[in-house]
């Protein structure tokens, strides 16, 4: 049946601006302009672009294990990233050097620098000056190397410019602010972690609250001045156990939101903790799965991660350009790469989808380009890529996906990836389709992947361009209709083109995976949303298993009554 797209909350990047420009941002803007002017006069060759990006973070971490606090801390940091480009938009100092020599400048291209936390203009400007001068000298040296190389080597496969021209952004949003009742949360996290108490099968366990209040400043020599603020709040529950054969088993649950209230209630978290315990107990007893090739359902969150890994990373714009990359999709624009009923897009302007806040929401990317929806696949046909200001063949402009963790160099990254099938069936029907497909293939069962811890993929030519996805909960769905059976010890492996072309059906149960994605430009918050998908053929292989026995002694039974404890303030007065 034709499917309705999931309900979303979209936010216009320019909405809600008009905050007062902070003195610190103004000071850095002045310093940037001075650098542009002075280096323009004295630098040979002069820079054509300078940008400062500042990540001002206030992080709170509260962690507990087994009913006792392990950590409760606050961390504030203001980190400066300075980008200086020498040359011109066509060919500049960031151009890839193709050389057999190790290119130090590519590794050292990120330079996090701690800035004063206050808006003291002299201190801010002096730190920025030293960094600008240094990055300028590096860029000027690198451009000489690049020009030398160009006269020695064959032309680049992709003749695109090095930097796109974009409209300067001017937006002053409110700085991020988040207030957390620390003692109350300490108590809550403690209590959640205490649910693992008395569980003999659970080894290590922990519950963590992590909040990050992030104010970002961006200023560049093209005239962009941006301030944005947003919060990230996460509760993370994890535990592990060990099967009798030595296999390590892990299970976690996360709650991500933009506000503390968005996390949902305590009852839900308690339920998640209990589910972890139940699942780990079941996993300890679950049979080992044999290697298998056949049909499978990737349930919503698992399907989201699957798409993030095997598709999302391969449509990052810079991978279409770099000649060491596999370029799986570089020349497939306009061609069908998956079934015609599937569309895929990435949209960082989505703040919410269904009942989930989306981790990958932002207004401007790290190059100051307004976030926008990138249509990647429309009705099965590849339409475009995730683009930063590094143009690639056929795509001259950024679509606002240039991202980085502070201290790293920017590349194009995912934000909120959404897989949207045009026709869907109810979940129960999808399971029937799985049974039918398994039967057709002569199998006794199909597999259903409920949860995936993450995965990795190699996109480069130097190695096999395959993926491996690490499932946590995998069930056998029997053709003869007996109840599903939990199995353990398998990894999902394959190659992207084959896997994508074999999606045969989808259900209407959109689920969102919120997480942090690590790649060249560091860890960035992302989400991936998909309904459950039926894939005609997937392959699983046995997981490497540990050999350690479960603990030799039983968990210490609390033989003596617990000594009375009393609360005492941390900040006792000095003697």
């Amino acid at each position, binding site marked *: 049946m034709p499917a309705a797209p999931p309900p979303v909350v979209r936010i216009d990047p320019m909405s809600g601006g008009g905050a007062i420009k902070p003195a610190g941002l103004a000071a850095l803007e002045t310093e940037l302009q001075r650098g542009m002017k002075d280096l323009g006069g004295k630098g040979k060759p002069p820079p054509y672009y300078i940008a400062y990006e500042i990540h001002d973070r206030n992080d709170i971490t509260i962690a507990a294990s087994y009913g006792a606090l392990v950590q409760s801390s606050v961390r504030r940091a203001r980190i400066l990233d300075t980008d200086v480009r020498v040359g011109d938009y066509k060919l500049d100092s960031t151009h890839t050097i193709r050389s057999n020599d190790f290119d130090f400048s590519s590794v050292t291209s990120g330079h996090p620098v701690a800035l004063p936390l*206050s808006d003291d203009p002299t201190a801010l400007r002096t730190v920025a000056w030293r960094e600008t001068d240094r990055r300028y000298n590096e860029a000027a040296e690198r451009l000489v190397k690049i020009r030398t190389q160009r006269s020695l080597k064959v032309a680049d496969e992709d003749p695109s410019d090095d930097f796109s021209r974009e409209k300067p952004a001017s937006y002053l949003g409110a700085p991020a602010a988040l207030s957390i009742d620390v003692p109350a949360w300490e108590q809550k996290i403690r209590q959640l972690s205490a649910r693992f108490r008395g569980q003999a099968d659970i080894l290590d366990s922990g519950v963590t609250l992590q909040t990050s209040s992030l104010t970002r400043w961006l200023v560049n020599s093209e005239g962009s001045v941006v301030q944005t603020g947003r919060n990230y709040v996460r509760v993370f529950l994890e535990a592990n156990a060990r099967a009798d054969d030595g296999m390590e088993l892990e299970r976690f649950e996360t709650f991500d939101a933009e506000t503390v209230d968005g996390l949902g209630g305590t009852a839900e978290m308690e339920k998640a903790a209990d589910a972890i315990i139940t699942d780990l107990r079941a996993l300890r007893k679950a049979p080992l799965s044999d290697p298998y090739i056949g049909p499978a359902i990737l349930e919503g969150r698992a399907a989201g991660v699957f798409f993030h890994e095997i598709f999302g990373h391969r449509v990052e714009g810079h991978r279409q350009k770099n000649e060491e990359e596999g370029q799986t999709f570089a020349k497939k624009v306009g061609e069908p790469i998956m079934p015609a009923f599937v569309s895929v897009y990435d949209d960082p302007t989505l703040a919410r989808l269904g009942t989930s806040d989306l981790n990958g929401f932002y207004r401007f990317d790290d190059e100051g380009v307004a976030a926008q929806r990138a249509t990647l696949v429309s009705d099965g046909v590849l339409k475009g890529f995730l683009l930063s200001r590094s143009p690639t063949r056929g795509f001259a402009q950024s679509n606002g996906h240039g991202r980085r963790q502070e201290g790293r160099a920017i590349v194009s990254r995912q934000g909120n990836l959404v897989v949207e099938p045009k026709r869907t069936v109810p979940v129960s029907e999808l399971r029937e389709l799985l049974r039918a497909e398994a039967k057709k293939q002569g199998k006794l069962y199909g597999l259903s992947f409920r949860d995936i811890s993450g995965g990795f993929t190699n996109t480069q030519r130097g190695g096999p361009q395959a993926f491996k996805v690490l499932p946590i909960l995998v069930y056998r769905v029997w053709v003869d209709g007996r109840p599903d059976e939990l199995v353990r010890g398998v990894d999902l492996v394959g190659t992207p083109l084959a896997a994508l072309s074999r999606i045969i059906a989808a259900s209407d149960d959109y689920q969102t995976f919120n997480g942090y994605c690590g790649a060249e430009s560091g860890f960035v918050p992302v989400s991936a949303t998909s309904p459950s998908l039926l894939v005609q053929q997937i392959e699983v292989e046995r997981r490497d298993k540990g050999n350690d026995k479960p603990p030799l002694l039983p968990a210490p039974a609390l033989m003596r009554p617990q000594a009375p404890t009393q609360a005492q303030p941390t900040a006792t007065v000095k003697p």
Partner: protein
Amino acid sequence: MSARRWLAAVVVVVAGGSTNAAADSLAKTAEKPSGVRVNATTVRQAMEDEIARSMKELHMGDDEPRPYFIGYTVSDVDQATTSATLGAVTGAHAYRGRLLRTEVRVGDANFDNTNFEGGASVEAIPIEDDYAALRRELWLRSDEAYKNAVETLARKRSAAAGQASADEDDGIADFSSQAASHVEVPFTSATPDPEALRETVRKLSLLLASFPEIYSSHVIGTTSVARRRLATSEGTWVDDNQRTTRIDVIADTQADDGMKLRSFVPFSALDTAGLPSFADMEKAVRAMAKELVATRHAPVVTSGAGAVLFEGPAAAQIVKILLGDQLSGTPPPKTASAGSDDGGQQSVLAGKLGQRVAAPTLSLVDDPLMAIGPGKAPVIGSYRVDDEGVPAQRVSLIEKGVLKSLLMSRTPRKELTRSNGHGRAPRFAGVRAHVGTLVLTGDKGQKRGDLLASLDKIAKGGGVTTYVVRLLDDGSIPGDGDDLAALFSFGGGSHGPPPIRPLVVYRVANGKETLVRGVTLENLLPRSFKEVSATGNEPFVYNYQDGGGGFSGVPSTIIAPALLFPDVDVRRQQGKHRKPPVYPSPLSLSPTAAPAASSVSPASPR
């Protein structure tokens, strides 16, 4: 070539873990004090109960050995760090954590799983005194440590069986016997005073704002309290604590030819109250800054034979660099493959007991029981019992130039089979013998004027240039954003010890001291101490963290008078300079920049 590939090849997504992979472990404790549960007896009870159970019951089957020794160390660390530049705070972090070190030995004291491959087991555990949560950690970590110990012992046995027994160390036990210790020092407060430190650090950093010729500067201050609880199956119980505070004022700049120049002033004490007065610190920082600015315009040294007087911090630093690690008698761990026991960690002094290793005028003791240094200087390398629970002892290492002993942990060596209370462990590494409070003395300490006269006499002999060195570079002091390329290109020469880089050097001629720059000192070796021809009469107290960056090392102290080395290879610094700044610092635009800062006259010698 392939390095680049692996850096970029793999992309991952994670749901769990940190939101920021680069986030450091230092974090600021919550502004508002929170109710952390504390109970004086719980921690000890949990430790002793799990030791008792594990000693009795922990075993893998009848064929496998049982533990013969179990030790737990629970360290409660409460640490606050502030960094600042030009009067503005750039970071204010605090770390409060509890670390558990677990040691399980199987076999017996003559041959056990230690002194072989494998590192220390150190884990973060709950900071609250919750008996059940602590027992659980102790149980799980002991289980892991025991399994590792059994496996390691098996590998060590098979390695020993496969190796020829020509090794002269054969028959040396792995663990020396020791009576149980009982030390309890009352613990008053866990909280250092971060506010006072923060303001001091900020104010010190502001002093450098009047020196626009210093391109980058920062001040880092850390104060830390570590409460240590050690329980062993031998019945040892130690509950004591250590306070350390340190402020480093660091300045970096370049000469007009691009040469990188830096200097720093360290201040240390047990706690913030023990630091010098602000006025004294201000004086020292200004003197350092003036001297560094003057260095920008100082002549570059010419290579050649030199006679060098190390004085002030440089005297203690040269003792640390040349002798510090060599005094440890802990033998290097054996390795699985025969012949790979390359002696890289073997002390060059170890084989020289009873032999001359220094000039006959020199004597050296390590005395952790010394509570306070000359001139009432704070001594952070002072302790009563080491990390193996052995009472600290004063050890006479060198007497009139002859090596008498080494610093020992409970890992014996052929010549020295007992610990002398120097077994200490950096926060995340294993126990080995470390310097506690090392005191070098000379027989006939001379006044500075007489030492300069000695230098003059050497110069008059011809062919030798004479220098005074006041400060050496210290790798543990963070620099001004060194890039990877520079780090990788270091240490190109494969011959001889790594060159020593002095930061403050004066050339002395006819009683006149001229500041110079671009100096490296080569071929200084432990045996160079045999050539020391004169010593001063004002010992300098130098506090540092041994064997670990930041505050993760072992608090140590070296006390040494000025030392005259008559034969040192002085070389002009090699390598390419970074370009000097293309445009001026904003500090030079500020009308408040003090004119004194651009003075080129060298700071007057003390």
